């Protein structure tokens, strides 16, 4: 029986290849993700390890007690017997970095560290130039320096949010990076005195190098006893750093595998459909086997073995394609923060998983078609099985489909939390899939009307062909529907949440310019507001502060637009104070001038916040240039002042909207790219169905050619058929996604901050165009096959 299976598979090589193509793609994605994340994991762990090079013992404390000036502690550590050298180290974020006299700012979440002047205690090495040896010298990571074009010897400015910017000379570049996922941020390496001055507080970590002949374990024990702080050896430090690095890589892997699962599910759709069609075409063959005495079980098993063979072949190819994918992934993922330079790692586990997924999915998907397709009475071998009556969809399927779809739609309509939206979406899509044999052909007829009017008889014929087997066209488009629904939902949600960024910018910006940190999380120095106020040529300055009032258990913010008068406050509804009441902030009673929606927030004027709070974070500053000053001139004046603040960047409204959208667009592009694999697999399914239809209609097509259909017209009919399938699938998917997106937006709308559905027509049009183009491409090979053989040979075909 096995040799028969292998021969059958060989004889049907094209079909086998086509069905395996979907397996190849699915396996490629899964194995590629695994190879990439294994590589990522090993890179991150290596990074984690090198950060403790030359460090034998590390001391770290939760905080420095205020009576310790830091200097005393390091002195005590250095005196411990067996310590060759010790250095306090800081890791600082909220770093501003600029060059060219402050005119060019490096955007990103930078990190500053310091190194000892002692090369024996430097975990970082210079790849070019040298390490900082004295105050006023710094080293940058090579990637940032080359991206921004900062040469060795250049003067750069570095600041943190609490201190003024200082100038440093770039003396070297290191190939170490900031580490982790963020590729944008720079690594700034400074000498210890500079860091101590910039930080303004003692280091919480001390790294120690052991004297010759002293083991790290010994030294850690001695240090722990001498200074009473937990000391960890090099190995312990590396292990814990590696653990967290592996955790990071695993999170990343799981996200990627999520997309992999989607791709594999698409492949399952396609495989199941292919087997259904193949077995339908083999009815006579199957019946013949039954006639000469094969049991149904034998025939069923032979189909499963065939599936296993196809799955295995697909897995092997998929693994190969996965290697290519893993090499390409870093570039694609760089924009969502994956580090570049990851070398894929192919582990035995990945090979096993790829094989298991490929063979398993193919066999499971083939199971149901195999059960149906082998239920052929032996007598069918004797009849004329060439005309198959399409089995209508069962009543049970229709009823349950309708019910499931209705429940799903209901859930979507009432959903007020994300879980309900997801559940509703799953039910609605499942319901649709059950109903599809009835719904899809009906929609195809609608979609194809305009084509039929345009294209004449040839196209009408294609459309009649398309719907002749409702189940088949339904299954073919279903894969596409699911893929498009995913992409369109992501696009709609992203674009709908993005649209408010323009509104958000409008609401926030009442002045012409907004000055914020160089990243969303970078804080800006408090004195920026003061400096700007001292420069009347800049214009009117509106600082915004943020502080938390522990006594009130509420956030205190500067009210921007519609600010209350000096000495009065706006409160959020959650505080339960009505207009006319008072709210007491830091001992001062503020009359409440208005109530805004929200939980626990008090809005005061900037001056009142500065007066009442000793320290409040400056989050942003708005600047309105003096009347009559042109935009360019006002901007130049403002930038000249900001040159002294490397971490502060000025935006006008359009620039600010761009900044708000940039991150979203990048993430959207990556998610779309990952999901498009699912759509590609679905289109492979379209090609698959068409090829099998061509095979099935060999004689019909030959007859058409005989009575005068030209080759071009025959190709056209197949293209039209593919096009209609693709468009129908895309339209259904888009409609479903609109429903899901509306529900999703409604569910997160929560506190009156309603998000409206924005339909990005341009993107949807592109999606439709791509689907159409891909469908046309998908029809090329089947069409070639249809016109290849001679008419007379095809007329005689079985």
């Amino acid at each position: 029986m096995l040799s028969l299976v292998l021969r059958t598979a060989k004889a049907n090589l094209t079909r086998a290849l086509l069905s395996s193509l979907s397996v190849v793609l699915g396996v490629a994605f899964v194995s590629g993700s695994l190879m990439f994340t294994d590589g990522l994991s090993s890179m991150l762990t290596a990074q984690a390890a090198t950060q403790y090079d030359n460090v034998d013992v590390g001391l770290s404390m939760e905080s420095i007690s205020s009576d310790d000036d830091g200097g005393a502690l390091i002195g005590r550590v250095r005196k411990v017997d067996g310590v060759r050298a010790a250095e306090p180290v800081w890791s600082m974020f909220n770093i501003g970095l600029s060059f060219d006299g402050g005119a060019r700012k490096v955007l990103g979440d930078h990190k500053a560290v310091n190194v000892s002047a002692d090369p024996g205690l430097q975990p970082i090495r210079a790849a070019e130039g040298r390490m900082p040896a004295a105050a006023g010298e710094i080293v940058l990571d090579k990637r940032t320096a080359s991206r921004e074009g900062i040469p060795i010897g250049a003067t750069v400015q570095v600041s943190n949010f609490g201190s003024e910017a200082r100038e440093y000379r770039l003396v070297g570049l290191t190939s170490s990076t900031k580490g982790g996922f963020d590729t944008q941020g720079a690594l700034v390496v400074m000498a210890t005195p500079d860091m101590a001055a910039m930080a303004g507080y003692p280091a919480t970590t001390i790294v120690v190098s052991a004297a010759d002949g002293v083991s790290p374990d010994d030294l850690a024990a001695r240090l722990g006893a001498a200074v009473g702080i937990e000391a960890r050896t090099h190995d312990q430090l590396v292990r814990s750093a590696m653990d967290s690095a592996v955790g990071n890589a695993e999170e990343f892997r799981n996200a990627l595998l999520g997309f992999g699962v989607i791709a594999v599910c698409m492949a399952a759709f396609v495989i199941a459909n292919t087997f259904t069609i193949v077995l339908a075409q083999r009815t006579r063959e199957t019946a013949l086997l039954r006639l000469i005495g094969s049991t149904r079980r034998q025939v069923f098993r032979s189909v499963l073995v065939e599936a296993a063979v196809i799955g295995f072949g697909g897995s092997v190819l998929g693994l190969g394609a996965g290697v290519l994918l893993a090499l390409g992934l870093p570039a694609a993922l760089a924009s969502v923060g994956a580090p570049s330079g990851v070398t894929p790692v192919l582990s035995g586990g990945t090979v096993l998983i790829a094989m298991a997924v490929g063979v398993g999915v193919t066999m499971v998907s083939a199971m149901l078609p195999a059960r149906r397709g082998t239920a052929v009475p032996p007598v069918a071998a004797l009849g004329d099985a060439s005309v198959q009556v399409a089995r209508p969809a069962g009543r049970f399927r229709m009823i349950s489909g309708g019910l499931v779809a209705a429940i799903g739609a209901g859930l979507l309509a009432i959903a007020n939390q994300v879980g309900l939206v997801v559940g509703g979406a799953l039910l609605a899509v499942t319901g649709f899939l059950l109903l599809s044999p009835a719904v899809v052909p009906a929609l195809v007829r609608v979609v194809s009307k305009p084509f039929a009017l345009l294209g004449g008889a040839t196209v009408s014929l294609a459309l009649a062909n398309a719907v002749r087997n409702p189940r088949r066209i339904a299954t073919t488009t279903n894969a596409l529907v699911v893929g498009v629904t995913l992409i369109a939902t992501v696009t709609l949600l992203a674009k709908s949440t993005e649209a408010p960024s323009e509104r958000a910018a409008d609401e926030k910006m009442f002045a012409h310019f907004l000055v914020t940190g160089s990243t969303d999380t970078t804080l800006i120095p408090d004195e920026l507001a003061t400096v700007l106020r001292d420069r009347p040529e800049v214009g009117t300055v509106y600082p915004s502060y943020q502080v938390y009032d522990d006594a009130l258990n509420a956030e205190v913010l500067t009210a921007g637009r519609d600010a209350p008068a000096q000495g009065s406050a706006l409160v959020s509804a959650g505080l339960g104070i009505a207009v006319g009441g008072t709210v007491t902030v830091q001992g001062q009673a503020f009359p409440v001038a208005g109530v805004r929606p929200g939980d626990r927030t008090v809005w005061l004027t900037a001056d009142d916040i500065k007066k009442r709070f000793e320290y409040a974070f400056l989050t942003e500053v708005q600047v309105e240039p003096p009347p009559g000053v042109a935009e360019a001139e006002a901007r130049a004046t403002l930038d000249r002042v900001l040159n002294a603040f490397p971490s502060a960047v000025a935006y006008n409204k359009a620039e600010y909207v761009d900044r708000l959208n940039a991150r979203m667009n990048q993430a959207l592009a990556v998610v779309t790219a990952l999901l498009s694999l699912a759509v590609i697999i679905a289109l492979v399914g379209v090609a698959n169905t068409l090829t099998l239809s061509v095979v099935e209609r060999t004689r019909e097509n030959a007859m058409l050619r005989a009575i005068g259909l030209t080759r071009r017209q025959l190709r056209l009919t197949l293209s039209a058929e593919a096009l209609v399938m693709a468009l129908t699938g895309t339209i259904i998917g888009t409609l479903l996604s609109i429903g899901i997106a509306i529900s999703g937006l409604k569910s997160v709308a929560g506190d009156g901050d309603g998000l409206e559905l924005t339909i990005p027509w341009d993107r949807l049009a592109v999606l439709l165009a791509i689907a159409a183009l891909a469908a046309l491409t998908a029809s090329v090979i089947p069409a070639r096959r249809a016109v290849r053989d001679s008419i007379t040979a095809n007329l005689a075909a079985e």
Partner: protein
Amino acid sequence: MPALQATALSKVYGTGESAVAALDGVDVSFQAGRFHAIMGSSGSGKSTLLHCLAGLDKPTSGAVRIGDTDLGSLNDEKLTLLRRDHVGFVFQRFNLLPVLTAQENILLPLAIAGRKPDRAWFDQVVAAVGLTDRLGHRPSEMSGGQQQRVAVARALITRPWVIFADEPTGNLDSRSGDEVLGLLRDAVSQLGQTVVMVTHDMHAAARCDRVVFLRDGRYAAALDSPSPDQIVAMLEHADRIGR
């Protein structure tokens, strides 16, 4: 002038030692307005001859003329258009598109050409084949005989120069077969059509004006308006001289 003419027609399948000559220098012509049959035993080349005459297959050498058109001078596109506009076909089975109704199947050659049907002619043809009340049915709702009558109507609808029929009665019971032969006969006698039919059924051949016999890919003989007995005798004779 003959409606259809083959000159020194040869068709070789395969190359080298495995080459088989299905047709070996056949010279034959078919007069317009007559009902022709081509007969011969299995493997005599009768189907290959029909395919070459109809422009479905390219001969290895020799020439075919339909009317005053030399098929050898036409590329695939032109040949297709010639078939579409001037040639009708009736095949043994699987003659119709299952997705189309009888009417749509009949009008298919015109639809492919993007031409409007001549209403009066359509009605006449449909009435002739007796399908007036079946036009909305699909092939799966019709008997084999009815399906073949639709095929005959489809062949007639373009008023072709010649209709080719390849074993048109091969899949039908004898009554339905008779009906279909009658339709082809009427097409010749009443509408002046030219019909060339490949058959192995001597009763079918006996209704023709002329029967051409092939043997081993060569022209063997021809009989005008033969009786079944004459045909049997000729086939036996052809067999005998073949041994």
